């Protein structure tokens, strides 16, 4: 199992490098995953459950409960644990199962474990890495996050439309002093996470982003 996983990771890393992919991928604004919540995210076709404990600690796990395969992102956070909605199996900070409600006296074997990914918070944005990386999370240089928008185009098309080579954080500048991070979700869609200059009126920026998305999508249609 361990060896297979390692082989898979190495292969994945290779494929991603070839596609010009990036180490850290933004998956959402910190304010959108407040303490005590869990959300689903898809990153390069990998389903993740991103959750924030009551104490504010962020985690990125594979979105699959080892018990019967239910998506953990449908689960619930109690204190520093994430529970699966199906049978309530509870997982602690290190991803191992700590409690099985059907067998309250049982100490679950340590081998029952959710898969976890590297997850960092920087500039109030949540970043994940699919494979181990030495790289630093990108620096938004004082900009503040505005919002996330799904775009129904492959990530490469969006980067091309924006006239930028793909990187973790693409500085577009302009009147709103934009910087965007693209999260490739499926083959056909991605999510754009936008930062703007700290003193920009966020409603204006949000409307600008809506327009930008409409233009990108209609240019392709």
């Amino acid at each position: 199992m361990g060896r297979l996983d390692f082989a898979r990771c190495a292969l994945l890393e290779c494929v991603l490098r070839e596609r010009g992919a990036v180490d850290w991928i933004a998956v959402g604004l910190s304010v959108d995953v407040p303490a005590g919540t869990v959300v689903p995210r898809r990153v390069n076709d990998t389903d993740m459950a991103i959750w924030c404990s009551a104490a504010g600690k962020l985690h990125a796990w594979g979105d699959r409960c080892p018990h019967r395969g239910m998506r953990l992102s449908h689960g619930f956070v109690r204190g520093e644990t994430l529970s699966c909605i199906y049978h309530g199996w509870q997982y602690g900070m290190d991803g191992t199962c700590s409690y099985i409600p059907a067998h309250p006296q049982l100490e679950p074997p340590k081998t029952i474990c959710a898969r976890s990914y590297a997850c960092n918070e920087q500039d109030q944005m949540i970043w994940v890495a699919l494979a181990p990386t030495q790289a630093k999370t990108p620096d938004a240089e004082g900009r503040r996050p505005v919002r996330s928008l799904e775009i129904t185009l492959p990530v490469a098309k969006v980067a091309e439309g924006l006239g930028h080579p793909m990187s973790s954080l693409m500085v577009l500048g302009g009147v709103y002093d934009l910087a965007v991070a693209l999260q490739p979700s499926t083959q056909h869609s991605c999510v754009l996470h936008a930062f703007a200059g700290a003193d920009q009126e966020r409603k204006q920026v949000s409307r600008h982003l809506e327009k930008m998305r409409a233009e990108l999508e209609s240019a392709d249609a």
Partner: protein
Amino acid sequence: MREAVDDHWYPVGLLSGLEDTRKTLLLGREIAVGRNGAGVFVRDAAGRALPTVARFGHLWTSPGQPTRDLFTIPEADTPGRQLVDVGSVRVKCSPLRAVENFLDIAHFPFVHTDILGAEPHTEVERYQVDIREEVDEVWATEVKFFQPQAARSAEGGIKTEYMYRVPAPTCAVLYKTCPPRPGEWDVITLFVQPLTEEWCEVWPWMALYDDQSTMAEMVSFQQMIFMQDRSILENQIPRKLPLDPGMEVPTQADMTSVAYRRWLKRIGYTYGAQLVAA
């Protein structure tokens, strides 16, 4: 010889609901189901008539050559029961996942909260499971669970006893303690029509002792329960049911599920099953 997937009987409609001819899928192939004069028919895409059985309020068919009669539920024939046509719901999951979920009690407190279960009453005590060779069925007995509202007619929490039975790969029957009639069992079934390996039409049906509830209330109760399961079933990964151990982690509470998977493997029923860990 063992039956092939095609040789089993499958539910394809409610007898009370056969008005216009309905096109549907069975095991990935198009069929037409309807009424002609006094009778009912099922035809395959080539117009060939398929065998039919009318039982438990449903029309059953088989695209192959069934070697056995459709199973029976003798308990459901005892007089005084309300026979409840619950209707159907489509679900994007393997037919086998739908059956397995029906055999599971450990999810009651989290998915059917305050109805079929509630925290902190989450413990599943050891029960009996066996594969009955002589009838080729999976049975679980002496299954007990604390339930806040066991049935539409139940008032207050009770410890309910269940028996589970898998008489065919895509069908399950449960017998549960019946609040108004101690000593009798209510019969609740889940008949699953495999549309494809990852898409099914689920036909619950019930034979209950209940003099208090209207038919609409009993239907409503069961549709509520099943629709609570649907959002689970559509979010299990993979959509197919893994038959090989290793991909998922069972505990003692899952003995019925383990026996069901083992039995499917033994009889070679792999439609909707995932055989190698992906």
